[in-house]
């Protein structure tokens, strides 16, 4: 790509803001390969020990490598399950709701405002409220509780994102197909779904990513080892911050970045199409 020097100061400003936002993340990745347990510069030597070294008998908590920290892996596995479930549910609910809200369904505004509330109501009150409602209704906190709280948070984003990006002629195509006597299921399979499939996928990815990093809501409703965000939160209250956590963070960040690059690719692909 040829660098366009027109408006160079503006582009430098954008670059500086991006660097400030990304510097900590880049340093995190860099320092996770540091031999020293101290999470500051200088780097005393490059090593993969914080990722894969076999633990010595006296090592524990913040000093054993990520690979041998079984509770970390358990939490990470939980996180994967919770995030995948949240992503799929977000995908499903957003698609069903978005496709219907386009039509003049009586009461659609009420539902739309309710969905928006999921983003507006502060996370702490949502977490607290769900703990109380579970206690009051005699339900136990389960795997699905954090999933549902993540979905509540992700659906408003997904809905606005999807509805703002619908193909403008989608409804015309659909009604053309149904006046040609295509069954509703066939209209959906052959007309609607192929036209919105990328929006559906991006909503799912967004749900996954939000659940992957969410901690404020989740920290209230977790039981057992919990998901990885709440696990690290409790670990760091009793253990020091060492390079091991930077290694763990690098793994977590890698997942988020891969997800977002796919997301960005879909968005830019759509922009190019229009």
């Amino acid at each position, binding site marked *: 790509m040829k660098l*366009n020097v027109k408006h160079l100061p503006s*582009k430098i*400003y954008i670059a500086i*803001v991006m660097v400030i*936002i990304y*510097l*900590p*993340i880049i340093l995190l990745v860099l320092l996770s390969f540091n031999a020293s347990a101290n*999470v*500051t*510069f200088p780097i005393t030597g490059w090593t993969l020990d914080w990722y894969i070294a076999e633990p010595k008998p006296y090592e524990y908590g913040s000093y054993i490598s990520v690979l041998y920290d079984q509770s970390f892996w358990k939490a990470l596995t939980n996180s994967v399950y919770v995030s995948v479930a949240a992503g799929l549910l977000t995908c499903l609910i957003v698609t*069903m709701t978005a*496709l*219907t*809200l*386009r*039509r003049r*369904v009586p009461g659609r505004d009420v*539902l739309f*405002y*309710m969905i*928006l*509330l*999921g983003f*507006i*109501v*502060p*996370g*702490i*009150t*949502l977490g*607290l*409220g*769900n703990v*109380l409602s579970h*206690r009051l209704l005699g339900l136990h906190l389960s795997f699905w509780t954090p999933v549902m*709280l993540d979905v509540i948070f992700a*659906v408003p984003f997904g809905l*606005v994102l999807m509805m*703002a990006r619908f193909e*403008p002629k989608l409804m015309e195509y659909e009604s053309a197909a149904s006046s040609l006597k295509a069954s509703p299921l066939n209209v959906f399979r052959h007309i609607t779904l192929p036209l919105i499939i990328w929006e559906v996928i991006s909503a799912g990815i967004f749900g996954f990513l939000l659940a992957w*990093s969410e*901690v*404020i809501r989740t920290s209230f409703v977790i039981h057992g080892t919990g998901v*990885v*965000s709440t696990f*690290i*939160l409790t670990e*760091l209250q009793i253990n020091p*911050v060492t390079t091991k*956590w*930077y290694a*763990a*963070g690098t793994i*977590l*960040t890698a997942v*988020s970045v891969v997800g977002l690059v796919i*997301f*960005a690719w879909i968005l*830019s692909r759509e922009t190019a199409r229009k």
Partner: protein
Amino acid sequence: MAKYTNYLMLLPGLILCVFFLIIPTAIILRISFADSVSTAEFEIHGLTIENYVKYFTAPQTLNILVNTFGTALLACLICFIVAYPFAYFLTFHVENEKLKAYVISLLMVPFLIDWNIRTIAWIPILGDQGIVNSALMSLGVIKNPLNLLFSRTGLHIIWLQTYILFMEFPIYLALARIDPELIQAARVLKAPPHRVFYDIIFKLSLPGVICGWIFVFVCTLGDFLTPGLWAGGLQTLGLSISTYFGKNVWPYACALSTIMIVIALVALYILLKIVDIKKLIYES
């Protein structure tokens, strides 16, 4: 028939909202008016406004509310100052559409990485032996390291990093919608640049700006972990809720939560008054 299918399609979203959003909020509201809640059987006793009276007459309340609003509004202002030029330059000075989409998406990364990781990643930069302190000390500007990490400065830096996308998106969308011919027309009619900016660009982007302020405000309002860790002793509404929740003082925690929900609802109301979100997404 089609009518029933429509309602059937909306059912999952409705169930989700009712069970995990409306019922919990209603229970918070009910308990906020309760005398006591027995911890064992979880029975709610009494009906009183005592909790609210107690909160609003407590000597530290004013201080906490000022702190809460002050830090949240300052966070909005900082995000706005950084994000507005960013959105402006991105809209009018970057031509490559794909690049724009990537820059905008990449702003999401800090928000979508784990809270703990995002937090500890600042240690090598703002810590006592971090880059900033080392640089300032070797230049001889300061003798002892500044306490940047666990301070309000640190809080606002990390909030900027996390929530800038909520300011950036709406402003960018509003700017991208401005008809370039309007700007062209103003220039042809010899409007001075500052008037072109203020009277056309800024005024037309105002809904996006307000959207951004409300998003960042709501996000920072509900974030109790970051100020709890970073702002060393800064007491906010969110922190009070989590403290009373931790001590099992349910009615009081619920009263504070209700106050917070009311503030958020007012913010939502303002948002809907100013920006017609429905117009953005409904086709008919």
